[in-house]
Each structure stands twice: as C-alpha cells, then as structure tokens.
C-alpha cells in the first residue's frame, strides 16, 4: 500500500477531495447508465406483454373508442 494509514489514504496529501469527487462521479454515472439501460429493456418487454394480453381479451387499445354521449348526465 502506498499510504501509511487509512486517514492518509482518505486525505491523500490534501488532494483527497479532488480524487474522491472524481471517483464518486465516475462510479455513480456508470452505475446509473447500467441500471437505466436494464430498466429500458425490461420496460419494452413488459409493455409488449401487456399489449398482447389486451389483444387476447379482445380489448385492443390501438383504436380509440367511438364517440358517444352516454357519459353526459344532464340534471
């Protein structure tokens, strides 16, 4: 090890804040990229599955419902 103690390792001869900021940002950015990319792929698969379930039940959401006046209740 290049340092005598844990505290020397953290302080890094006064350069600690610079070094640790860089490493923290690097790790967070890469971790974020990985998690975000995984989530994107899973979302696409889940959306497709939901779409297929709807199709199977005969309720395709692609077409908008025909216009009707049934929701209006004049008092």
């Amino acid at each position, binding site marked *: 090890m290049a340092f005598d103690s844990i505290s020397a390792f953290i302080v*890094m001869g*006064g350069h600690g804040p610079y*070094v640790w900021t*860089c490493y923290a940002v*690097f790790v967070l950015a890469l971790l974020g990229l990985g998690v975000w*990319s995984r989530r994107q792929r899973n979302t696409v*698969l889940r959306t497709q*599955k939901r779409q*297929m379930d709807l199709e199977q039940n005969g309720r395709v959401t692609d077409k908008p419902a025909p216009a009707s006046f049934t929701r209006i209740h004049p008092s």
Partner: protein
Amino acid sequence: MWQFIRQLFHKFGSPKWFYGIASKMMPWLLAIGLILLLAGLVWGLAFAPAERLQGNSYRIIFIHVPSAFLAQSIYIMMAVAAVVTLVWRMKLADLFVRAVAPVGAVLTFLALFTGAVWGKPTWGTWWVWDARLTSMLILLFLYFGVIVLMSAIADEKSSARGVAVLVLVGVVNIPIIKYSVEWWNTLHQPATFKLTEKPSMAPEMWVPLLFAVLGLYLLFGWLACLRMQTEILKRERRTRWVRDLAAAGGN
C-alpha cells in the same frame, strides 16, 4: 467463399441472431469487465506509488484516461457503423449507433469532468480554452447532436441516413483531438500510451491503467449489447420471436 461471406453477412445482419449471441456474451463481458476495472482502480488508488511532481492528484488518471479513450473509440466505432449503414443499409449498424450514442456522451462528460477536477490542483484552473479541451467539448456536442437527431426524425430510413451522415461529418474532430497536444501549445500532457513506443510511466502506474482501460472497454461491450437488445425489441415488437419472448417474460 463468396457465398460463405454473403451468408455470414446476412446472419450478422439478422437482429434475432444478434439478440441471442448478445445474451450469451453479456454475463462474461460484465463479470470480466467489472473485475478488471475494479482491480485497476483499487490498485491505482491505494497501491500505485505517488507521482513525483503531482503527488496524489494524479490518481485521477485511472478514470480520466479510460473515459477519454472510450469516448473517442466509441465515436470511431459509430463512424464505422455509419459507413455500413449508408453503403449496405444494414439495420444492425444503425441500431448500434442509436444504442451507444448516450454511452459515448456520458463517457465524454466524465472525461471532461475528471479532467477539470484534476486540472484545479495541477494547473491551478478548472478549464482552459485550449485545443484538447475544446475539441473534447465539441465531441460532447456531437454526441448530443446525434441523440437529438435520432429522436427528431420519425421515419426509420431517413433517420438512419441523417444520423449516419452527421456521425461521419463529425469524425473530422477525432484526429484533431488526438493530435491537438502535438500541434498546439497546451497545458495538457501528451498521450500516456502509444502503440509504437514504450509507455512513459513506470509499470506500477501503467499496468493498473491498462487494466482500467480494458475493464471499461468490456463494460462498454456489455452496455452496447444490452442497449442494442432494447432497440431490437422496439423495432421488432410485432415479429413472432419477440412476441414469444415477451410472453415468456424475457427469457
């Protein structure tokens, strides 16, 4: 022979085939990449000796150089894929450009950020408008341009062509980044690694750096596979195999 090449080309162009291959490679890329990167970073942070002039601030090199290296390599890979898109209209090449552009942008940002934070204790300033730093900033804007353009055009084919042309125009910037430290006066130090010469650093410093570069390269491979899979699923969602895959919950 020609027949074989054509077959290979068709196979390689098939998104379904690529999806399967990517799934098989991804665990290896992730595991080996993480081990190499972690080994390089821990070694560089705790065990490599301090630099004679810069003290401990130089330890930023173990993330700065890999990020900057990948930022440029990713752009070169995108340019190669852009040529393939324009000449052979291969869908997979366009999907690659789309998948990795955000990764390239993040790594360029990391190279700039770690460079700025390293510059403060070493040069006494966060930023100078010299050739190396400015051309890296232009690289970041090129990545942003690609990301914006690929979502701005709805038509699949014109989007692919537009993005490919933009990527190819921007490739001019790559040799400028590479030679900026030799052509102009700058605070930035010249390249640590050269293919033709021995590294200018001690082995206790460049071996962990090499580990970190290789590790980040493999991690990029993992990210590229994962993100290309997402793009493939989006494009092919009406095909039989994607529907089967979605029904099986992604396995």
